[in-house]
């Protein structure tokens, strides 16, 4: 029940936040939120605490989860920054 409460609030927050984004920013917004979805990294890290450390199969899976999530996080944030760096305003034109 507590989870449902959190989920519903977060859904509304998400809708409110994104509703008015100029189309110029659609791509960076998408790749930025994509980087945020790499939050599953935290889950993967926690697994390496709870996991039975003698089960090599579990460890391999958890490490793979860490690897893929961190590709998503690092790649996502840097790519987004790379794009946003290019967006120039007329005022700030150098």
């Amino acid at each position, binding site marked *: 029940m507590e989870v449902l409460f959190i989920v519903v609030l977060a859904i509304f927050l998400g809708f409110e936040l994104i509703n008015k984004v100029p189309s110029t920013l659609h791509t960076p917004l998408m790749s930025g939120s994509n980087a945020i979805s790499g939050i599953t990294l935290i889950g993967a890290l926690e697994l390496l605490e709870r996991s039975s450390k003698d089960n090599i199969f579990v460890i391999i899976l958890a490490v793979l989860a860490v690897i*893929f999530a961190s590709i998503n996080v690092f790649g996502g944030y840097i790519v987004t920054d790379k794009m946003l760096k290019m967006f120039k305003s007329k005022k700030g034109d150098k």
Partner: protein
Amino acid sequence: MEKIINFAYIISSIMFIFGIKFMSKPDTARKGNLISSTGMLTAVIFTLLNKGLAYEYIIIGLLIGAAIGVYFARTVKMTGMPEMVALLNGFGGLSSLLVAFVVYINENSRGEILEIFQSTSIDFITLLTVISAIFIGGVTFTGSMVAWGKLSTKLSGKPMVFPFQKEFNLLVIVVVVISPLMYYIDDPGIKMLLIIALILISLIFGITSVIPIGGADMPVVISLLNSYSGLAASTAGIAIKNNLLIVTGVLVGASGIILTNIMCKAMNRSLANVLFSGMKKSKKVTGETEKKEHTALTTEDAFYVLEAAKSVMIVPGYGMAVAQAQHTVKELTDLLEKNDCEVYFGIHPVAGRMPGHMNVLLAEASIPYEQLKELEDSNNLLASTDVAIVIGANDVVNTSARDDENSEIYGMPILEVDKAKTVFVLKRSMNTGYAGIDNPLFYLENSRMIFGDAKETIQSFVSAFKEI
């Protein structure tokens, strides 16, 4: 300690929220991304404070992942951005799938590898969330991989249809919906096999559900998959009982849905229509035999028109991305402006292969974003525009979407370039565009076709301007 970590998680959720908020304005967007990445860093650091983590493995995983991620980000070109976003998105989904799978294994067993087929202790709710996370994560992964293949043209951009596609996909959904019933199976070995089967089914379903969708519909697909990766993280969060994952995942999921909705509206199609129809067989309109003639124009003649123009609207499409013409376009823009001509860009929301694709390319060529006009503004401006230059766009300027009720894209909002005094259409040939729909625009009295490579054509305008 746990309290401190939880407090840190609250801080990082707030940072994600502000990050996303800041990213909705061009001036603050970069700062927003920085805030959100700091939120991620905070979350990671405080998670590492947990006691009893297997640091040796964590460091290996983080280093490998960071190295690959940084490498991808450093080497990707702006034109390769759509497929890069798809690729990264897929990895996020895969990670969520793995997290959920490990949660299942851990709840199920301790110790030896084969023990994962023994003993069982998982409760129904956890099983339910594990199944959801596996399914959504799996679909996100392979779906994104197919999207990546299509966007990087490693796979054909054409919709690929196979027999019984709809029936197959429907069957998969039914199987997944009833799969939580495995809770009532007592044998843990069979349960584990079912979970593994579920993983495989999810992976296959990701492929079979994206492969029939054509390249032009990719903006919808990418934003939808983006939403899925958030939902996957969120369901994995429920399975692992981590509120940060739940909240953050849902935020991404919701924002992805909004973006998907914007894209669908821009094509006047429902999400279901994009996902399930492929591209409908075009109803060949009879009576099409009426003579249609287009007027071709040489680049020299076109140049004289441009030289006299006081206002120009450039309408780019996927063709500009393919020809990599954005820098040449910028050169032309500068020269036109020097020649006392106003230049605007009319950007259709679904031009290109991902949401905002054209904006990124033009930003790369350092065209200020104020010059890029959204659909409505563009259409208002077009009425008083001397020349509209269509560069590698087709469907988004197809007048049959507005005028011909029989057209399969009827009702899709378009950039009404035909309102301009003169329209230049830069195109390779008279072949129909991606969607295979004839474009009446090409035969209008004020339309001029300029055949050839878009980049070369624009380059010849640039040279001509420089000569005067």
